[in-house]
């Protein structure tokens, strides 16, 4: 495991989530940020800030990334979403293209 293989996602409230790049790439938006160097200044430090995404939602998003990796590799579990999170999570997911 190398530090360069991870990326730090920062929520609106300044909470940090360090996840594998591989997981972050589940989001098309983040994938674009990470694979087009220079165009997104923050990605050079391996950090992406999401001022519009709250901490609870960002953590849920990260959990989804990992679930998605597991799911695509044949582990069939359900991804539980609390109903009160659905609207915000839906919008974040829409933004992140995941």
């Amino acid at each position, binding site marked *: 495991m190398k*530090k360069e293989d991870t990326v730090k996602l920062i929520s609106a*409230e300044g909470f940090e989530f*360090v996840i594998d790049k591989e997981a972050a790439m589940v989001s098309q938006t983040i994938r674009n940020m990470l694979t087009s160097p220079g165009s997104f200044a923050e990605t050079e430090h391996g950090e992406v800030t999401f001022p519009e995404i709250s*901490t*609870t939602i960002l*953590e849920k998003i990260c959990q989804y990334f990992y679930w998605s990796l597991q799911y695509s590799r044949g582990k069939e579990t359900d991804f539980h979403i609390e109903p009160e*999170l659905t609207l915000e999570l839906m919008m974040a997911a829409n933004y992140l293209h995941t």
Partner: protein
Amino acid sequence: MVAFEERSLFMSSLEEIKIVFSFSVCDQMEPPDEIVIAMYIRVKRSKATYFIQCDPTETILDIKQKLHVLIDQPVNDQRLILMGTGEVLEDSKTLADQKVENDAIVALTLRKDDNEFEDIDIVKPNDFYQSRDADGGSW
């Protein structure tokens, strides 16, 4: 209607392409020994969360070594506590031994200058979701 027939034909040929494509992708990207991400845990301290991919057979020491790469703290200065039970995790034991499951939250504490470990410090976000619980009716 004929046009629609055509479309369905077209779609089915697209599907075929997709199948072929997905096969080739599998061949390239997934060498057989790296296929499985068995599980991950969420290691939390203060306002930071580290998502660590791991396997139930890995020991706590293995996890601490992974953390060392990320936070630059020697494994001896790390202490991991399973949040569900409050149990301090032992270096020599495996995740499975200590019932650390997929998506589990594990608190990280670090050794202070006085050689003692700090108390568990996980900041709870005070974002919209929690705040609404508090003032539920006003929405």
